[in-house]
């Protein structure tokens, strides 16, 4: 039982990270209907930004408090990836809006390849390890919870709440939802559609950066091809939960995290990704639009 709870906690931690990245996928999909394949690499960029800021700060201010350090890593990462995603949208996706469906998908895949190779070229192909930032652990009976796990879950929850608030309660969120429902009508009613879409990309990127920084903190290593596997899993999470649905993305992320950690604990580590993908396929057979997705009604 303790073992199970332990795995549950590990799964939740991992799931929080996937959930944060998945939100970026799902929001972009909801608002302009494209799979932003480069989102996984935005996550990777966020991790690298955090890593570089960590190195700079620790070399200048040796005794910097960990909380401040973490906060700065998160903030700079968010700014950085926000800027990147804004530019990417401007350069690679906006000119193709209204083009046929596969065109932005191809530029997104190209962008993903370009981004990971850009980091490989500029920062080198080797894994980048950093010393552990947060090392405290707590023991509840046989269960061990580390402070970083608590941090990840808490930060995720705060961000999710903030996000939910923005989307549901602010004028910006209203504009986003309007653009999602009918872009042309929203534009006619005075919503600045381009700006709304840009902000959506920036918001998605900021969440991905937080996820990237926490991934770095959790595993203590960053690599240029870190974007792909977590990216695909987060995308899987978004689809599993029903793409376009925010609670669905979080639910999907948590589910994927749980499946992964429980499968590796009880069956085999080697096949954990196979299990994740297989469960995705099975769920989609019975619910073709994901768990919380709206059934697609196509008007003829």
């Amino acid at each position, binding site marked *: 039982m303790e073992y199970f709870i332990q795995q549950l906690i590990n799964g939740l931690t991992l799931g929080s990270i996937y959930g944060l990245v998945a939100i970026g996928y799902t929001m972009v999909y909801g608002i302009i209907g494209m799979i932003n394949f480069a989102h996984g690499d935005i996550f990777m960029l966020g991790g690298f*930004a955090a890593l570089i800021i960590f190195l700079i700060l620790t070399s200048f201010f040796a005794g910097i408090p960990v909380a401040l350090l973490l906060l700065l890593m998160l903030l700079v990462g968010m700014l950085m990836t926000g*800027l990147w995603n804004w530019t990417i949208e401007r350069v690679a996706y906006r000119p193709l809006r209204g083009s046929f469906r596969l*065109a932005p*998908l191809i530029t997104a895949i190209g962008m993903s390849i370009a981004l990971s190779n*850009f980091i490989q070229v500029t920062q080198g192909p080797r894994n980048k390890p950093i010393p552990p930032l947060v090392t405290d652990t707590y023991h509840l009976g046989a269960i061990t919870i580390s402070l970083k796990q608590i941090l990840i879950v808490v930060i995720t929850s705060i961000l999710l709440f903030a996000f939910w608030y923005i989307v549901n309660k602010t004028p910006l969120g209203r504009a986003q939802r309007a653009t999602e429902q009918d872009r042309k009508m929203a534009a006619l009613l005075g919503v600045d559609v381009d700006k709304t879409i840009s902000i959506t990309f920036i918001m998605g990127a900021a969440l991905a950066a937080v996820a990237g920084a926490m991934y770095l903190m959790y595993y203590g290593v960053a690599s240029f091809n870190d974007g792909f596997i977590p990216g695909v899993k987060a995308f899987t999470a978004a689809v599993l939960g029903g793409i376009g649905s925010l609670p669905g993305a979080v639910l999907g992320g948590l589910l994927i995290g749980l499946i992964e950690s429980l499968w590796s604990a009880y069956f085999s580590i080697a096949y954990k990704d196979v299990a994740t993908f297989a469960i995705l396929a099975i769920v989609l057979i019975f619910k073709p639009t994901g768990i919380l997705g709206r059934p697609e009604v196509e008007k003829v």
Partner: protein
Amino acid sequence: MAYTTENNQSGQMAKAIKEGIFAGLIAFGMFLLFVGIETYQDINNQLVWRTRWGLLAVFVAVAAIGRFVTVGFIKPHLDSRKLAKAKSGVLEISDEKGFFRTHFLKIALIFLLCYPFLAMLIFGRQGSLKYVDNFGIQILIYVMLAWGLNIVVGLAGLLDLGYVAFYAVGAYSYALLSAHFGFSFWLLLPMAGILAALWGIILGFPVLRLRGDYLAIVTLAFGEIIRLVLINWTDVTRGTFGISGIEKATFFGIWSFDAGTPNNFAKAWGLPTSSVYYKMFLFYIILALCMLTAYVTIRLRRMPIGRAWEALREDEIACRSLGINTVTTKLTAFATGAMFGGFAGSFFAARQGFVSPESFVFLESAVILAIVVLGGMGSLTGIAIAAVVMVGGTELLREMEFLKHVFGPDFTPELYRMLLFGLAMIIVMLFKPRGFVGTREPTAFLKERKAVSGSFTKEGHG
């Protein structure tokens, strides 16, 4: 009049300068951490950093000047040209085609048939190896894969992100069956195709109800599952070590290309020993396989099943209301596409003599899909051109030794290969969103071919 244009121009300049500075600022922000600072491990294996302001300045300057030139000069020029064209009132679509364009396919085919001999004439026996193998065979494999995927994506409109799975099935079925049962290439080629087609149907079944992007992620997941199984099922596939020593293809059992065998090809013909004959032979095999793919695709498009695929691509609901069985239509598309992937896979195994899961990563699927889309979905010629440009271009980059003289001896063009490939994908797509051959001509027509309305509008929703 003169006054307003001058005013316009100075306004344009001011705008260009402003945009240029803005782009420079953005680039500075973007590249500050990733280019301006380099992280590396020192002797104690500690991660440390140093600055690279010079390189950062280059990046910022390129962005600022590039944006300035685009806004200030290139864009007004393009706009004025477009305006002039619109005023002249001549539509770009004309029936007049030059000799080269009308006979393009024949010329291309004749060139391909002569290509290995040409290469041998120009570069000598050993020198031509590179051209036949790296350029010829490599490009043709991608042409074949892209044509196979074209059936699924271009004709039936089913977005498949895991096509490489069938390529892997083909390659591993050849490798395993030839290692365990000693079957020959010519027996295993069709078998690999059939096995891959079978997998196409198996994978096709669960995704029948899915649409568009849901389909995309599930096919991606299948591709990953196959790769992960290949990695982890070590008893059969030897995992990441891969299977080596795969038997070569023979000349229909008459001559062998293995050195030392009594019926060695070179010995039988009294030629000096060289591996180039095998490569040339492989070149013709893959050329024949490509032709087969093209022939089948062209014929199928004229048959009811091909028409059904295209109908499915255009509108699934209309398709169903007209009584087309979408289940069999989708499954045949998956199976046919997968079969050609399987052929290509078994050819790949025979050519490399070695297969490992490394060759079947998602990136391959993405590259193949990119070639299909960049070529203009559905157009065989366009796809072939895209394959030549994208694959040939990146192969060419390996050859660029002279760049070492420009950027110093440490410069390895190899590193930039995939970076440039990704950027090329984006740039081509931005300038030619409909692909290299972007006009969609109707397959079915009455009496004569007419340009469809889609060719006239700049962009439609396809």
